[in-house]
């Protein structure tokens, strides 16, 4: 689990939009059904052309059941690999920083964070009719003094995310703590 500082509290967690797993579920379901439909369509059918004649027969249906179950199991495991990739990604906004968590497959995990006072620019990007309709898109954050750009792709309600982060950023900037630091020469 994620370790936070002593006086650090989680304000909000930003996740990817549900549209992504929904589409994946539909695709996986189609991929599971397709071999069954093909099998049932071709079973005991004879295809005759000018050169050859092929009859599709299945004397032991249990073989087909075994192969289809194997295919189903493979898809099931693939789906949950995707699901963990989807669900373990996100941004955590605390009262001090934003933590960017990104999972790539099972064996690559990136965790980066930036302090809210270093935030320079937040950009949202909503591409296409589907993204507009379902309210998802990318959120880009640029911070001071680093070339790295923080991106949350397929974020749910990117405009809201932008507003929330900027609100917290303003709170930090207006807080006494930041002004105290400012008075001893920190850049504003």
């Amino acid at each position, binding site marked *: *689990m*994620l370790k936070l500082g002593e006086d650090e509290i989680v304000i909000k*967690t930003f996740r990817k939009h549900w549209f992504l797993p929904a589409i994946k579920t539909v695709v996986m379901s189609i991929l599971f059904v397709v071999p069954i439909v093909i099998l049932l369509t071709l079973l005991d059918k004879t295809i005759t052309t000018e*050169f*050859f*004649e*092929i*009859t*599709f*027969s*299945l*004397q*032991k249906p*249990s*073989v*087909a*059941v*075994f*192969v289809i*179950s*194997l295919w*189903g*199991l493979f898809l*099931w*495991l693939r789906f*949950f*690999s995707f*699901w*963990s990739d989807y*669900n*373990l990604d*996100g941004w*955590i906004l605390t009262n001090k920083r934003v933590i960017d*968590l990104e*999972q790539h497959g*099972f064996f690559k*995990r990136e965790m980066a964070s930036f302090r809210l006072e270093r935030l320079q620019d937040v950009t949202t990007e909503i591409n296409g009719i589907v993204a507009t309709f379902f309210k998802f898109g990318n959120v880009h954050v640029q911070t001071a003094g680093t070339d790295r750009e923080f991106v949350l792709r397929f974020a749910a309600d990117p405009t809201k995310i932008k507003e929330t982060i900027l609100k917290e950023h303003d709170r930090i900037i207006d807080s006494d703590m930041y002004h105290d630091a400012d008075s001893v020469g920190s850049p504003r």
Partner: protein
Amino acid sequence: MEGVISVEKIFENLTSVLPPLHTVLWGLFALILFYTALHAIIFVYHWHKYNIAPGPFLSLTYIMYFSGIAAFLLVMLLSLLAILS
């Protein structure tokens, strides 16, 4: 010219070069079982360690994941027994 495509024919041809069918199929099933177990361990490890929102959702995901695996493996085992009987 006539050709019959059936899975049984393919198995018949393979039996001439492979060990007995029982050994091959049980070996295949053991391999699938091993792969699935490995996947499950890795999946649970990651979810348990990295999930930022544990709680009922976590156990629900585990229940769904393992019930799906169990269902597919059970059907595979039953069909394997039917093939080999």
